[in-house]
């Protein structure tokens, strides 16, 4: 075997430098800074910083609001993943079967993905405002919906607001996944089985598993981190902090409450949670997936 050997020089470092620089400045430096904050106590302006070991962590574990946020984040990411995944899949399958105007459907269904979460929240506001919200009044008629008092109702509010945009992301990836399935496999299955429903669950869906797995991770990450703007423009955590995600709580404590120690400790807890979820997924779910 012939070995290709480049002449050693420093030029490769030069080419790597911009990328490494970006990583160092925007990724590693903030992480180091977060660790520093999490283990120190300081005033808002950064004075009087003292090393306090795990005091900040004990402080958040002693805070019932932290566990409420934790519970909500878990429920929220689970429900959002389920809803956006299933509706996205349904739409993708339907759009894939359409004969005419396929690209029009596609484009229209992708559009919401381009909207910023904060804008989605403001739009959801119009639907759920007590004064002129269509959905507010519909639900209010049905069961006395009132999101600023009922925890369940406020969940519905932020789940609808949070799902809508993410359905588009699921749609586009599922559609791409469907189109990547070889025609011959589909045709062969059509000969073997007349029932399209069964065909889908035994042939198509298993072949979509890599996409599904990818989307589960994407959706969980979305619900954890990207829904910040939605919460901030809809319920602001009402009622009594029940709809606050962990990110939102860290923001409130860090930037509104000006307690960087607690916010830093919460960020590290979040890192750990995401780490555990991801390891779990790669360990136990990925093994059951067949990549082509």
């Amino acid at each position: 075997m012939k070995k290709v050997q480049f002449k050693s020089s420093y030029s490769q470092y030069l080419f790597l430098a911009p990328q490494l620089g970006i990583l160092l400045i925007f990724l590693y430096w903030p992480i180091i800074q977060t660790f520093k904050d999490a283990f120190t106590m300081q005033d808002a302006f950064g004075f009087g910083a003292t090393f306090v070991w795990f005091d900040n962590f004990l402080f958040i574990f002693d805070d019932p609001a932290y566990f409420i946020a934790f519970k909500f984040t878990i429920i929220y990411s689970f429900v959002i993943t389920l809803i956006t995944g299933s509706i996205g899949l349904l739409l993708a399958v339907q759009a894939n079967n359409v004969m005419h105007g396929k690209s029009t459907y596609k484009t229209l269904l992708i559009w919401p993905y381009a909207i910023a979460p904060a804008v989605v929240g403001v739009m959801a506001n119009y639907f759920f405002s007590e004064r002129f919200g269509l959905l507010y009044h519909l639900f209010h008629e049905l069961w006395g919906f009132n999101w600023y008092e009922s925890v369940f109702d406020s969940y519905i509010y932020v789940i609808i607001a949070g799902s809508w945009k993410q359905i588009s992301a699921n749609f586009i990836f599922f559609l791409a996944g469907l189109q990547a399935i070889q025609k011959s496999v589909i045709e062969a299955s059509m000969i073997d089985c007349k029932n399209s429903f069964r065909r889908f669950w035994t042939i198509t869906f298993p072949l979509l598993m890599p996409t599904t797995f990818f989307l589960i991770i994407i959706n969980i990450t979305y619900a954890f981190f990207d829904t910040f703007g939605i919460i901030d423009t809809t319920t602001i955590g009402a009622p009594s902090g029940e709809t606050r995600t962990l990110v939102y709580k860290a923001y409130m404590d860090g930037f509104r409450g000006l307690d960087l120690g607690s916010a830093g400790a919460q960020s590290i807890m979040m890192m750990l949670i995401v780490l555990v979820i991801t390891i779990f997924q790669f360990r136990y779910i990925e093994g059951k997936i067949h990549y082509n």
Partner: protein
Amino acid sequence: MKKILSILTILFTFSFTSHSYSKTEIHWWYGNSGFLGDVIIEIANRFNASQDQYTVIPTGKGSYEDNMAATIAAFRAGDQPHYSQVYDAGAAIMVAQVKNGVVIGFEDMAEKYGIKVDADNYIPGIKNFYADSDGKMIGVPFNSSTCLMYANMDILKKVGIESVPKTYEEFEAMAPKIKAAGYIPLVQSHFPWIWTENFFSRHNLLMTDGNNGYDAVPTKTLFAETDAFVMHWKKVKEWYEKGFYGYKGRAWGDNQAPFIAGEAAFWFGSAASFGGMKGVVPNFTVNHIPYWDSVTGGKEYPTFIGGAANWILNGHTEEEYKGLAKFIEFMGSPEMDLYYHNMTGYSAVTKGGIELAETINFYRASPYHKAVGEQLSLEGSTIPGGYRAGNWPQIREVIYENVEPMLNGKISIEKGLKNMDKGAAKLLKQFAKTL
């Protein structure tokens, strides 16, 4: 051709920017938006037009909270403005920063640069709110409001009520009538500010230990152990259940909306709120906030000042501070004070401004403006004119978190207030560690 054009554009831009550098720039960050933000820009414009040595550049950073966070972030990055507007709940944090050299106290500044507007020129109540424990003024009073009661006189007339309630007892007596006519008797926009902090000041009660933090760093709030406060919240819950009080969520505007729409008879809000309602709500009056006759024995006490002050930040040149001194002097002049009072509804903060208002019979022309100054300068209080408690923005969150379950009956009033005390004590302890 394109290239030449773009080079020309760049040259032009530079020539313009370099032009503006011939004046000394003073940066002023603020946390008001909408109409109130426009008035701030107008103040800067007037100052800039009044002289040609300095340019004040006002920059809006969003809400009070946003501006405080932005100011702190800028300071940590060494890029702070000269002058920044920080709200009442952040006052303890700012006053504590004088010793770290972040904030320059107003009195030190006035002495060093010979500002003609001295501390005594400001109204006592307002002056003390932004002073340190020795009574030395740190923040420069700016937009000073308090909570007031707005009343829709058309609704009252329709149900046959002649005068607005002075006390909560009177309100309680008239609420069923208003409710029966299909209106919401009462809405309010800020639990922690109106029905907590100012409940204590309005009834001459201490809110925290350490004499509201003026004598010693506070370690706890006195919510659950103050009988009048427990009684008040029990009443609020009762009103809520009977439909005398309508809760519309946490957003300020959502609670104000029923009043603007003519669906609610009374709304508790800020002195600076009437600007948006003038001409929209046909016939409303601005009144003192009610008090419990049973608690004060018929006496009426002043409320705390709300709103914000401007704070001088360290780290700039002599020349720039000279300009800032001129600007502070300009803003403290009777004319500018009255201009701001008139435009926004915030209280006049200088003695000169109030005198000027009286000279020109201002309050006869605009009775809306009267209540704020009156309520703030009521006498007879034995508690300090403010509170010095750190982490207060977070304590306000704790209050909010417990009010909602208290109202919907998930927890009892006693339990809710105890939770607030517990949460607040933890945050106060945390703050004390950073001092």
